[in-house]
């Protein structure tokens, strides 16, 4: 769905369905350098199971225009302005990687509007290695390679994609290659500079669900321990045989975790 935020073109994938009055809303936020399509195995399901779905493209990503916000907080405010523009009041939010920080921030900043928050592949703080930051800053393809290689566990790179006939590694690289100049560095830097995540966590009123990959080397489960402590109501789901690209590596398990997290329609 094309719409406008701050006078600029914005896009939200809705499962090719119009919003239905009275349905709960589920908002999905992608990770750094990516777009709404990373949620395809989950967002379409919710759109056809009683939710008004908005899988957003953040500004400067996918089909949304404008410069990408340079802070996680800025992204969180944009997400809520997008929700406003879409006529969404209360919502459940799911975020992956950088998007999980945005979801955390949304939940902390707008506690009266958030039903539930699912933080997928989340770590607080989310430190980014200088090698990756430097490669992204230089616009080097090596940055895409690092994210692809570190993001998927070895087995996922070898294959056996749950989506028949698709090669996960190729799909990840091609999607990153579509990111605009400087976007990935902006996003990685925003993650690296996000320092107040634990303070935000203390303000989160809704149930928080952490969905973590047991073999995630970019946001390993141990890096979420302080976050778990800081959150008031929290459920942690660790997925076996899963790296950082959880929605692609374990699409059914992630969808099931989200289904358990988001309040059901009616």
């Amino acid at each position, binding site marked *: 769905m094309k719409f406008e935020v701050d006078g600029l073109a914005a*896009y939200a*994938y809705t499962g*090719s369905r119009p919003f239905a009055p009275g349905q709960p809303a589920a908002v999905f936020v992608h990770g750094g350098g990516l*777009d709404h*399509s990373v949620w*395809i*195995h989950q967002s*379409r*399901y919710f759109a*056809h*199971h009683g939710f008004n779905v908005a899988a957003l493209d953040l500004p400067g990503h*996918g*089909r949304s225009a404008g410069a990408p916000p340079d802070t996680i907080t800025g992204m969180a405010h944009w997400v809520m302005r997008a929700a406003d523009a879409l006529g969404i009041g209360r919502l459940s939010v799911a975020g992956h990687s950088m998007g999980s920080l945005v979801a955390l921030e949304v939940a902390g900043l707008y506690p009266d509007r958030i039903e539930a928050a699912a933080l997928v592949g989340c770590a607080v703080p989310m430190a980014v290695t200088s090698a990756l930051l430097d490669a992204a800053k230089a616009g080097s*393809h*090596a940055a895409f*390679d*690092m994210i*692809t*290689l570190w993001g998927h566990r070895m*087995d996922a*790179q*070898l*294959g*056996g*994609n*749950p*989506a*028949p*006939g*698709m*090669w996960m*590694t*190729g*799909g990840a*690289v*091609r*999607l990153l*290659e*579509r990111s605009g100049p400087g976007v990935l560095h902006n996003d990685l830097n925003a993650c690296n500079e996000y320092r107040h995540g634990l303070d935000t966590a203390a303000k989160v009123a809704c149930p928080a669900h952490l969905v973590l990959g047991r073999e995630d080397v970019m946001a390993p489960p141990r890096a979420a321990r302080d976050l778990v402590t800081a959150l008031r109501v929290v459920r942690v789901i660790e997925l076996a045989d899963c790296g950082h690209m959880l929605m692609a590596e374990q*699409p*059914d398990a992630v*969808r099931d975790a989200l289904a358990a997290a988001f309040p059901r329609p009616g």
Partner: protein
Amino acid sequence: MSGPGYIKFDTLSLHAGQKPDPATGARATPIYQTTSYVFRDSDHAAALFNAERPGHVYSRITNPTTAVLEERVAALEGGVGAIATASGQAAMHLAIATIVGAGEHIVASSALYGGSHNLLSYTLPRFGIETTFVDPRDPAAFRAAIRPETRLVFSETLGNPGLDVLDVPAVAEVAHAAGLPLLVDSTFTTPYLMRPFDHGADLVFHSATKFLGGHGVAIGGVLVDGGTFDWDASGRFPTLSAPYAGFHDLVFTEEYGPAAFIMRARKEGARDFGACMSPTTAFHILQGVETLSLRMERHVANTRKVVEFLDGHDAVASVVYPELPDHPDHELAKKLLPRGCGAVFSFELEGGRDAGRTFIESLRVFSHLANVGDAKSLVIHPASTTHHRMDAEALARAGISEGTVRLSIGLEDIDDLLGDLGRALHLSQRAVKRRADTARHTGAKRDAGVAQKEAGPRRAAS
């Protein structure tokens, strides 16, 4: 996707797409010889049908064994996904039917496999799709032939049978400048010799019957999406960028991003045209893919020796192989095909069609049949077989003459191959000489007879 850190080609050839079978622990890819798959419950069924979750519904669309082959070839090519089809022809048709419709147009190389030429030249016009054929060595000719209604640029990486090396970067640039994707038939090169996506191609298909399978036991094709082409930006492909009523107004570019093409090809083409690969065929072809590197190395090594042998043989008028210095694409081949120019090539025998017939019929190790890319060495006469529907002009454009013989070099001991070829060449020339002698003798006798007849009456008259 082939740089430091990525899993290497030979490992992908053996492993990509497959984990030890979760049900049995089988290390080899099991043949899931089933048409369909039991749903866990009604919601599971509905979600699978509506593409809300990945999985298998019906083996015309996807199958666990076939999916291994698809993912493996996609990995070897560096694409985002693939579809295995009933044949290479079905893969080509699927590629075209996914993005080209009635009233639209294709620009294609004139040096194509005869079956591809048939589809473009004779069959697709019945469905309103026209093709303009151009010299594959001339990127400007591709550019000049593009019309407003053109939707696809198509060629083979190595032309059949003249081995015209496609300047993939140059032709891709022409296509992209016009907002069009480049589709290449990479059957002769396989991802071992060339990865067309690395050079700018957007879609690749293979006749997997050939080198991928490699053993002449199964017919199949594979269509691979590089995930590189921006269908939205082009604005010419509503099958991918506009709501599709056949799937609840799904917009493929929005839903699947870089994988829009291959998902449409599966959700529409596999569903509606139905030219699927059987799981047993996929298993057979997987066995070939596992040894692709080893076989291609040997194919190329043997081919180089055969080319050298033929090139220096008195009975051979010419040999067409891009690694020979006099081939027009010699320099381009060094750049795009450093590992070799494949194992299929043609040569011109002294003595024309008669010599060719004797040569082919005298071979004992080589098999006379209509295929290439087998582990066994093969031979055929294109003008009377694979390209027999082409008229003389089209044959000439494709670089084929009446005396052209095409070889597909296999994995046999090179001494036996050279011995077989040498013997057949000798017999072909001896046959030509005998026929010439016979003709000369017959002509002399006839001349003498005529002289006698002419002399007779004169003598009688005298």
